[in-house]
C-alpha cells in the first residue's frame, strides 16, 4: 500500500470489539484522507439526529496519504465527529506526532463507536490493539494520564482528555501530545462520553511511496519553496503571535470582549519580540516540520515562575491577553498549561471574557459566580473559572453546558460574541472576508475552515493574476464583492489540506505563491500511484466541503444557522481605523446567499441542490436528505 496505510481501525466500545477493515480505494481516491473519509463515515454510520454525546455518535481520528512521508509539514491529523459544542459537524486538526505514528502502525483512521462500560484507554501497538482499563487514569489531568501511559508502554504519541472531557464539558478538547489540541468544537467531550481516557500508538511498519525518486525530488522542491517564502523567516522566529501587527494596525485587537479595538497598554505585550525575551527558550516543531512555529516556553519570573510547556500560540495569547484585559506572558503560559491539562478549548475559555463583561455591567455579581471577583484582568479569577468549568463545580456546571444554557441562567446573551455558534478573535464588523468566512464555516464561526488568510498578505495583483475571473474588488477585504468567490475557493483547498494532511502554514492557504494545489497533486500522485492534478484535487476538496455542509443540513440546520451576534451588529469599536462600523446584516446576508448558490446550495433554505450532490459523486446522500425534505430537487 502506497501513501495510504490501507486499514481503518474501528473500536466498538459497547461490544468491546476491535474491527479492522481495508480502506476502500475508491473512497480514498475521492475523499483523500482523514477529514474527507471521516465525514463520509460519519454520514454512513451515525443516524440523523443523533445527540452528539450519545453512544451512537462516532469520533474518527486519523491522517492522510501524505502523513508520515517526507512531505514537509505533513505531520498533522484530523478528527471528525458530530459536535456537542455546536450541533454541527465537528472537524478539528492538530499537529504533534500522533498522526504519523498511526500511519507507521498501519492505520489511516481510528473510529470510536459506542460507549465503554467503564473508563478505558486504547493501546495500539502495530497490529496489536487493546482496550485497556483506565480506572487509574480517570480523574487525572491530561499530563498525569500521559505520564502513566508512558510508564506503562514507553514514550509514545498520545491523545488524551482531561477532566473537562471526562465531564463532557461543551468545549472540551482532545489533547495531542502535551500541547497540541483537536480544539474548538468539543472532541474531548465526545471522547469522554464514550468513557475513553486516551489513545496511545506505536508504529514500526513505516510508510511507503509509489514513485520514490520523483517523490523525494518534489519534497525537496516543496521544502525549498516553503523555506524561501517571505512569510517563513518571521514564522520560524515568532510562530503565530506574529499575526499581531495586522490586528494592531487595523485597530481590531479583540480587547475586553470586543469592547475596544486598540490596546495601547498591551503594545509591548503584543510585540512578538516580547515573548521571545520573556518566555520562549527555543523553537519547537511538529513531526516533519520545517517551519517550527512552536516554542519551548519557560516562565522565568513572577507568580507563575517555573511553568514550562511547548506551544504558546496566537489563540492563547489573545484569549488570555487582550480578550480579558491581561498583558502578562507568564499568565498566558500558565493558562495554556491549565487548559491543556484540564482539556478545555480556548474557545470555551472565551466565556471568561463574557462573564467579565457581565460583571462590569452589573448583570451578574459575585454571588452569581461563587464569590469570584470577575474584574477585567483578574488572572486568578480567570484560572478559577477554567477549573470550575472542567470539574463542573458551582457556576462551572452551568458554564459547562454551553453558551445558550449559560445565557439562560445568567442573562447577557447579547454579549456573547458568537458567530454561528462559536467565538473567535477576528472581528466581523468591517472586514467582509472575516464576516463571510466565519458565518458560513461548516464547523461554526471561527478562523479554521474558511478564512482566506492569504488574501491579506499578498499584493492585490497576485489575486487578479491567479484568479482572473474573480471580481476586481476581491482583494479589498472591506468590500463584500468577490468574497463569496475567495471563501468558496479556500474552503475546498482547506478541506484538501485537512485530508492529506498538511499544515496550512506550509501551503498556499497561507503562503501566496508557495506550495499550491498543483504541487500537492504531484506529491499525491508520486506517493500513492493514483493520478491527480490540481482540478481533481480541488474537486475532492469541494466534495468534502459540500458533504460537510450537507451533513449540517441533514442534522436540521438550514439557512437560519448562519448567525451573527448583536455584539457585532449593534456595537462598534469606538477607536481605530474601523471605529464606528457595525456589521451590516443586509450586506452580509447577500454575501451568504451568493456563497451558498456558488457552493450549489439554495440560498433561501440552505439546502443542497440535487445536481450539486450528483456532480460530486455524493449520490448516497440524496435519499436521506429527500426523506427529510431537505434537498432541492
Amino acid at each position: 500500500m502506497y501513501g495510504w496505510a490501507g486499514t481503518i481501525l474501528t473500536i466498538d466500545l459497547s461490544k468491546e470489539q476491535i474491527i479492522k477493515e481495508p480502506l476502500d480505494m475508491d473512497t480514498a481516491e475521492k475523499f483523500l484522507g482523514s477529514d474527507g473519509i471521516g465525514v463520509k463515515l460519519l454520514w454512513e454510520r451515525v443516524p440523523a439526529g443523533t445527540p452528539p454525546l450519545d453512544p451512537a455518535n462516532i469520533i474518527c481520528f486519523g491522517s492522510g496519504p501524505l502523513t508520515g512521508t517526507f512531505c514537509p509539514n505533513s505531520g498533522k491529523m484530523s478528527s471528525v465527529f458530530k459536535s456537542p459544542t455546536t450541533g454541527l459537524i465537528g472537524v478539528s486538526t492538530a499537529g504533534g506526532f500522533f498522526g504519523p505514528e498511526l500511519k507507521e502502525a498501519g492505520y489511516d483512521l481510528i473510529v470510536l463507536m459506542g460507549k465503554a462500560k467503564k473508563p478505558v484507554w486504547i493501546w495500539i501497538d502495530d497490529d496489536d490493539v487493546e482496550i485497556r482499563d483506565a480506572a487509574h487514569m480517570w480523574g487525572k489531568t491530561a499530563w498525569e494520564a500521559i505520564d502513566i501511559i508512558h510508564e506503562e508502554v514507553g514514550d509514545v504519541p498520545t491523545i488524551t482528555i482531561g477532566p473537562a472531557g471526562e465531564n463532557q464539558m461543551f468545549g472540551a478538547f482532545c489533547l495531542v501530545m502535551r500541547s497540541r489540541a483537536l480544539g474548538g468544537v468539543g472532541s474531548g467531550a465526545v471522547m469522554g462520553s464514550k468513557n475513553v481516557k486516551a489513545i496511545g500508538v506505536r508504529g514500526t511498519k513505516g510508510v511507503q511511496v509509489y514513485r520514490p525518486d520523483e517523490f523525494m525530488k518534489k519534497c525537496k522542491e516543496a521544502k525549498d519553496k516553503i523555506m524561501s517564502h517571505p512569510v517563513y523567516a518571521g514564522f520560524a522566529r515568532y510562530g503565530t503571535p506574529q499575526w499581531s501587527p495586522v490586528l494592531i494596525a487595523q485597530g481590531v485587537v479583540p480587547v475586553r470582549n470586543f469592547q475596544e479595538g486598540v490596546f495601547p497598554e498591551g503594545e509591548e505585550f503584543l510585540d512578538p519580540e516580547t515573548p521571545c525575551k520573556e518566555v520562549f527558550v527555543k523553537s519547537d516543531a511538529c513531526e516533519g516540520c520545517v517551519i517550527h512555529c512552536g516554542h519551548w516556553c519557560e516562565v522565568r519570573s513572577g507568580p507563575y515562575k517555573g511553568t514550562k510547556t511547548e506551544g504558546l500560540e496566537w489563540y492563547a495569547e489573545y484569549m488570555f491577553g487582550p480578550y480579558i484585559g491581561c498583558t502578562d506572558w507568564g499568565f498566558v503560559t500558565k493558562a495554556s498549561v491549565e487548559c491543556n491539562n484540564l482539556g478545555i478549548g480556548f474557545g470555551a475559555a472565551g466565556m471568561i471574557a463574557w462573564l467579565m463583561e457581565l460583571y462590569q455591567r452589573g448583570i451578574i455579581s459575585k454571588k452569581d459566580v461563587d464569590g469570584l471577583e470577575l474584574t477585567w484582568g483578574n488572572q486568578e479569577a480567570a484560572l478559577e473559572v477554567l477549573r470550575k468549568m472542567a470539574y463542573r463545580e458551582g457556576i462551572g456546571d452551568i458554564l459547562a453546558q454551553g453558551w445558550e444554557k449559560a445565557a439562560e441562567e445568567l442573562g447577557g446573551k447579547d454579549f456573547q460574541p458568537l458567530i454561528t455558534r462559536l467565538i473567535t478573535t477576528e472581528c466581523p464588523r468591517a472586514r467582509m472576508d472575516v464576516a463571510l468566512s466565519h458565518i458560513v464555516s461548516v464547523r461554526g464561526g471561527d478562523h479554521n475552515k474558511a478564512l482566506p488568510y492569504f488574501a491579506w498578505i499578498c499584493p492585490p495583483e497576485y489575486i487578479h493574476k491567479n484568479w482572473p475571473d474573480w471580481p476586481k474588488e476581491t482583494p479589498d477585504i472591506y468590500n463584500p464583492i468577490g468574497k463569496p468567490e475567495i471563501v468558496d475557493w479556500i474552503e475546498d483547498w482547506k478541506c484538501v489540506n485537512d485530508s492529506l494532511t498538511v499544515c496550512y502554514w506550509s501551503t498556499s492557504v497561507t503562503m501566496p505563491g508557495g506550495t499550491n494545489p498543483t504541487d500537492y497533486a504531484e506529491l499525491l500522485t508520486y506517493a500513492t500511484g493514483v493520478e491527480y492534478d490540481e482540478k481533481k484535487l480541488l474537486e475532492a476538496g469541494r466534495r468534502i466541503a459540500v458533504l460537510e455542509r450537507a451533513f449540517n443540513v441533514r442534522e436540521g440546520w438550514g439557512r437560519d444557522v448562519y448567525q451573527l451576534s448583536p455584539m457585532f451588529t449593534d456595537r462598534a469599536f469606538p477607536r481605530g481605523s474601523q471605529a464606528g462600523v457595525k456589521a451590516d446584516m443586509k450586506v452580509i446576508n447577500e454575501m451568504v446567499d451568493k456563497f451558498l448558490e456558488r457552493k450549489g446550495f439554495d440560498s433561501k433554505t440552505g439546502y443542497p441542490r440535487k445536481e450539486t450532490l450528483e456532480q460530486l459523486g455524493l449520490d448516497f446522500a440524496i435519499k436521506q436528505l429527500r426523506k427529510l425534505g431537505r434537498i432541492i430537487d
Partner: protein
Amino acid sequence: MAIRVTVQYFTLLKRTIGTGKEEYELEEGETVADLWIKILKKFGAEMEKGGYIDAVTKEPKSIIIAMSRIGVLGLRHVGLYDGLKTELKDGDLIAMYPPVMGG
C-alpha cells in the same frame, strides 16, 4: 504645504531596523515611493541587510505596506490605492511588516 504621516514597523522588520514607530514630514503630493526614499535615507543599510530592498528597482521587497487614512474605512494594502504612487495625505498611518501569518 507640509503633511505629517506616521509609520509603524512590526515583527522582523522592526527588529531589523530597531524602530517601531516614527513620524515623517512630507510635501503635499509626495507619494509612498517618496516616503520610502526618506526611510531608506535613515535605514538603508539595515533594510539592505534584511533583504528588504529590490536589487534592481530599489523598491521595497518582501514588505507589506498597508495604510489607514482618516475618513476611509480600514487599513488597506497600498496596492488597493495606487501602489507606491499613492499620494499621501496628512494623518495617514502606514504600517510596514514582512508578510505575516497566524491565526
